[in-house]
């Protein structure tokens, strides 16, 4: 009997436990990470990762945008765009990282909206969101916009696609509203671009509006003019202090660890020990042939002392063991060049010199420097490959070039004629190279004379202006690819005879990147109507581009 009572007590006490069985309090809350969206830290991260994400800067920006426009060449990974080699896995990096950033900004906006004190965060997030969407739609064309970003929580796995025209129209609205929202009396912390200077954010929003207005000149000239004039009237950048740039962190580059976003992404690519990147002759020749002072500010010849030359790593400009030999090389071989477009570094161009496969040698500091095949082209100056090199999202120089074009088109007179804005742009660019990027000034050339000559000697003033965009956009390659398509400058010779070339291009140049496989596989119904006749084709122009041949040397 006694036993049964004991048993009963045990049973009852066990059963009472069951009532609370499904309540685990916070066991399933990860103590190592926050569940609260903080607009400040989300914005700081996006500001940095937009240019700092190594993988995106590598596989999309460097490998395609900069490479298709013949700014750079390399041994393998970055020349995909030079030879029009199709690699969907590379091409999707920008899509992935941009939508993630949009997701971050959407969370920031949703959070900031609820608190009037956070209005500046909301406005800044909206401006950045437009900038990221613009690079995305310029790169891929029509895409999910109104339903995109952080909406999967509503179980919406199939965001609808929007036309680029509607997306651009919304850009103007967003930028206008965001600029109006900015409030000098409210805080803006963690701002790695303007350090909380709200007035400069307003100018940046207007300058972006100007950029996106100018994008429309081939499809809707009157809209382009209206939006551009309104943006300029609202106040665009006025000096290089207004330039939109981000400060990066410094660290040691390696393959270990998570994908790194802190440093300048383009510098990370160059520092990456397996990567060898040189300048492309198309880009170099414009500077060299016009005695541009920026050539030797931006590029130099580098190689390794003979005993170190067993490893290519030792000859890279970003490596401390390499030696700069620009003067010595010029003295011995007479000319400095970029790598001819359309080839990987391990290939030889048709008209390559007889000694293409053998090393060249110069003497420096009494020692022999060995210049192997890969290093007979200019490389980016060591100073400009540093990891904490700031990234420029929109330069004052760019804005001056838009003003020059607006003046040339006769839209209105904004404080000077086209030539004045043109010269201002070049001075500003040289200034930005020194002041923002930290390049060593080149005092050998008188920029005033040189700019005067350049303007006067170029018959097509539109060409003069847009070639300066091309030069300028080495540090904003995505904009470089877009403006080449918009303006048709520089005129590029297509690669046709490389073994890796995508034959579907049929002798033309890619004008966008194809949609990633995740869209083809998981959002196909929405995407279908926005493909090029059902084909995911990178030769098809986006809406504002509307040409297969602009900028192509047929």
């Amino acid at each position, binding site marked *: 009997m006694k036993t049964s009572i004991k048993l009963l007590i*045990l049973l009852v006490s066990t059963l009472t436990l069951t009532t609370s069985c499904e309540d685990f309090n916070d*066991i399933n809350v990860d103590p190592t990470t926050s569940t609260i969206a903080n607009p400040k830290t989300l914005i700081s991260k996006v500001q940095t990762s937009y240019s700092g994400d190594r993988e995106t800067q590598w596989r999309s920006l460097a490998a395609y945008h900069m490479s298709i426009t013949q700014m750079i060449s390399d041994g393998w990974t970055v020349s995909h765009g030079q030879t029009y080699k199709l690699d969907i896995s590379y091409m999707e990096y920008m899509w992935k990282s941009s939508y993630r950033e949009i997701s971050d900004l959407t969370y920031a906006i949703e959070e900031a909206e609820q608190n009037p004190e956070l209005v500046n965060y909301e406005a800044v997030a909206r401006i950045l969101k437009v900038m990221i969407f613009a690079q995305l739609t310029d790169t891929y064309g029509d895409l999910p916009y109104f339903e995109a970003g952080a909406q999967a929580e509503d179980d919406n796995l199939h*965001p609808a696609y929007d036309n680029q025209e509607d997306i651009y129209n919304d850009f103007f609205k967003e930028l206008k509203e965001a600029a109006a929202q900015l409030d000098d009396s409210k805080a803006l912390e963690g701002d790695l671009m303007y350090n909380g200077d709200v007035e400069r954010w307003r100018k940046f929003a207007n300058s972006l509006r100007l950029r996106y207005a100018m994008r429309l000149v081939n499809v809707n000239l009157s809209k382009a003019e209206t939006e551009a004039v309104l943006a300029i009237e609202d106040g665009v950048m006025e000096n290089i202090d207004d330039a939109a740039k981000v400060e990066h962190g410094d660290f040691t580059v390696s393959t*270990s660890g998570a994908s790194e976003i802190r440093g300048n992404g383009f510098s990370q690519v160059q520092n990456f020990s397996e990567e060898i990147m040189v300048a492309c002759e198309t880009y170099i020749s414009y500077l060299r042939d016009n005695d541009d002072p920026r050539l030797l500010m931006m590029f130099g010849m580098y190689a390794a002392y003979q005993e170190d030359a067993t490893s290519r790593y030792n000859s890279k400009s970003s490596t401390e063991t390499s030696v700069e030999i620009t003067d010595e090389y010029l003295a011995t071989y007479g000319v400095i060049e970029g790598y001819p477009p359309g080839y990987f570094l391990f290939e030889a161009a048709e008209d390559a010199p007889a000694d293409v496969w053998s090393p060249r040698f110069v003497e420096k500091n009494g020692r022999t420097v060995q210049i192997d095949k890969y290093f007979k082209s200019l490389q980016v100056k060591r100073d400009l490959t540093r990891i904490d090199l700031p990234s420029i999202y929109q330069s004052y120089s760019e804005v001056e070039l838009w003003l020059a074009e607006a003046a040339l088109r006769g839209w209105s007179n904004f404080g000077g004629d086209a030539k004045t804005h043109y010269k201002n742009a070049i001075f500003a660019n040289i200034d930005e190279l020194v002041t923002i990027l930290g390049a060593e000034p080149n005092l050998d050339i008188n920029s005033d004379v040189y700019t005067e000559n350049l303007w006067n000697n170029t018959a097509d003033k539109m060409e003069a202006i847009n070639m300066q965009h091309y030069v300028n956009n080495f540090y904003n390659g995505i904009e470089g690819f877009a403006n080449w398509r918009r303006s048709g400058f520089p005129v590029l010779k297509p690669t046709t005879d490389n073994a890796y070339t995508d034959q579907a291009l049929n002798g033309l140049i890619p004008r966008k990147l194809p949609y990633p496989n995740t869209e083809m596989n998981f959002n196909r119904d929405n995407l279908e109507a926005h493909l090029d006749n059902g084909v995911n084709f990178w030769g098809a122009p986006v809406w504002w581009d509307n040409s297969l041949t602009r900028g192509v040397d047929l």
Partner: protein
Amino acid sequence: MRIKHFKLTVFLCVCMITSFSVLQAQEIQITGKVTSLEDEMPMPGVSILVVGKNKGTNTDFNGDYSIEAEKGDVLQFSYIGFSDQKITIGDNTVINIQLVESVEALNEVVVTALGISRKEQALGYAISKVDGEELAEIKSINAVNSLAGKVAGVDIAQPNTGSGGSSKIIIRGNTKFNGSNQPLYVIDGVPMDNNSFGQAGQYGGQDLGDGISSVNSDDIETISVLKGPAAAALYGSRGGNGVILITTKSFKKNSKSKFNINFSTNSTFDEVISGYEDVQHVYGQGIGTPPRDIGDATGMWSWGGKMDPNLQFISFDGQYRDYGVKKDNIESFFRTGYTIQNTISLSGGNESANLLFSASDVKMEDIVPNSGLHRNNFTLKGYMKMWEKLTLDAKVNFTLEDVDNRPYLGYSGANTALALLGLPGNIDQQWLRDSATDANGDYVFWNSATRIINPYYSLYNMKNESKKNRVLGYASLNYNITDWLDFKFKSGIDTFTYDYYNYSPRTTPLAEWGELTKIDSRTTEINTEFLFSANKELNDNWTIGASLGGNIMNYESSTNTILGKNQGSEDVISINNYNEFIVGRQNPRKEVRSFYGFANVSFKDYAFLDVTGRQDWSSTLKKGNNGYFYPSFTGALVLTKAIESLRSKMISYAKLRASYAEVGGDTDPYAYNTFFDYPYSSNGANFSTVNDITYFTNINPSRTKGYEFGLDAKLFNWRVGLDVTYYNQTTYDEIMNIPISNSNGFESASINAGEINNKGWEVMVNIVPIKTEDLRWDLTFNFANNENKIVKLHEEAKTQTIARADWISSLITAEEGGSYGDIVGYDFKRTEDGTPIMGPNGLPLRSDEQVSLGNGQYKFTGGITNGIQYKGFRLRALIQIKSGADILSMTNQKLYQQGAHIGTLEGREGWALSESQRESAGELPSNWVATGGYLAQGVIEDGVGADGSPNYRPNDVYVDPKDYWGSIANSHIIKPFIYDASYVKLREVSLSYSLGPEQLKNIKFLNGLTFSIIGRNLWLIHSNVPNVDPESTYNISNGQGYEYGSLPQRRSYGFNLTAKF
């Protein structure tokens, strides 16, 4: 938190009480010997059951047993083919039994779920048992690897991952995409965390070992394998993949003394069998000619001239050497490894209180220089009767493991095999040793693929070490409430720390500024459970039993990872000596609360029915939807007892069994939160970003449903045993991550999806062809096949990626309608009838799409064991067979590309002749039609037919074999490197001699002595994969079917000595 501390305290207290109060105990320990009446030989493996209690044991090799029981208890002795005997315990504590041969009985006792001993004939599902002595004789460093080929339906892969590596066991096929498909390990009733600490992925890495690999095989009494969901229903979700129950040894009273000492020593030597039979030894380094400058010399191409000792070439270290074949140029890198394992166990006490202590030491030096393992195990296990109705048993086990220089695997630049494989035949690997570093200690580049690190540098200059300290133990109280009702309370703990570092000095390629990765990890799992069990014999016909229990499982793991970059002083390997840090932290926590009950009814000892039910609540699911119930029903019917007339000379015994079971499943911790995290900050700003996985709002627990039927039969007067099982199980609604359109801001969604079916047959056959007084021959076959089908995935994702090798455009996938583990990649472009199409230049074209080219999962597994015993001698040999899987050998791909593979010889002579003809004709390559070279089998497009479809002509364009294989490599055509991974291996051989009771009669202190000569992995009898062992996968992930840069095959042989005092 507080609950956990409390539990820990209870556990420790209980442990201490057991350890210190041994002397007060007073239960009866019954011992004795079981012999056969017929020949008076001792009978090993006789099961002894305390009737009415869930307690049992088996006799040892000498027929001895010991068991704790109370006066008045009834002991039941059973053995296949012998009549049961029941003895009521009186005053005598030594009970010797002689069993009579009979066709009546089949009563082997097995340990089932929750540690309950059951008679095998009462079970309605398949269970397999392997005796510890068998595992201990031919030891594997990783005890569970010794199960390979012994249990039908248990597929064991031993990846080629070096010292302290993990093992992979799959029972009845794969059911999960995201989680582990490995079984749950339960040691003495305590679940063991078997998560892997790290695996190599598509870009390389190391195998950092798993939990089970550190168990000492000498401590194992038996291993039971519960295969299906029915057997595992009581272990909850984690048992859904099957359960491996390990029972460790306890004190056993022997006939001569109250104090036992067992000692075993095992020494084996490992050596490279070689692997590179299919490497060519004709052409040396270079392209076209021997290397003439450093650039050529650092290209690891074997497309040079014919090797000739009279020629000179410059080698990578700048020296001029002769261009002759260097014998064993790769094999000489490896040394003879050895493994020494010693275990001593001391046990003593009496029936009421006893203790066992065992200590073991394992030292292993790998065939790869400077790599090895050192492990110690200590166990203290005790039992005591505290007072009449209360008994307590407890165990604590410490494991200390230290592994030096785990090898880098697969794609890793520091993978020694990757550097050595394809070393041209004129280069001796020893030259690498002398030129790994320069005078400053800086790395010297030797290979134009700068990533591929000199193996001497990766082994002697780079370093890695892991230390694992583990405590596994339990304390269990058993209260005998009445004669038919028991109450048990048990608390078990598994806790370990894992410390690892990995060092790359300055100048190491890809870590030029020096790096140190440090991982500190601590994991604890505590299981606290209670169980009421009732057992009542109602009358002669009916016996019923019922149990009710509950369990709380508490898991927490905490891992800090620090990557230090930019080394300070070059002589200090310590994390404080670095200038930059990337810090990561993981802290998964989980709790599962469960109630379960089971009931069994048996009728006349021939019809049995079991019903179980379990309700779990998991912290990983959302409140309101985090509880799930699952039942099981099993039945068994001994036909030969039910229908006496069935029994004949031919059919001695037959039993049918059937079961149906469900198992519910949860997911990983924190799968439900949208969180914001970024590990870095810069320029004074902190970063955060949203996680890249989203979840669907209504996630339900997943579920596995399965049924099985089986037949157990003994034929021809018990000479032949047959055990056949058919199973069919389906997993529904796995909680998995599917890739989604990134445009909603996330990369994947956590979702309920999928329906995966596994079905198959398992057959075990035992035959005793010869049985005389002195000679016995046992022959055992086991085989199993498994058929896997992905019935349904998800409307969003018809294909799920399981593993990737992006650098060669390959995936391992599961596709709706297909089966788990397809190897996907590019094929040749083919005509409609399947003939490869070459381009006009004679080089192959690649298929437009990636297609499935094979499957990496074995469909058929089996083993044949032969045992011959003659007096004291015993010879045992195990042949293991696996077939039906494919493997993508990227090693062979690389060997072809580099010209090292024997298959690259085809066309070289012809091409050289054609080239010399061209040169003497003074023609440029573009104007020359090659007269010889490699002629790929296939066709070339040749105009268009009337209907617009292309015409083809047989390929007639000779090409340089270098261009052909280079083109295959560059266009990522992997078809030629997918091989049938079937194999037949002579896995184990042992020849042992045991001193029998006769010889030992006069040696007072010695109770047993066995000496064995042993060998493992002696002979790869059949394989279709050139150069590498078909078992050479580089990880234990779900995505099997890739091999890259594998270490060569090895075999081990040595001796084992076991003595009992």
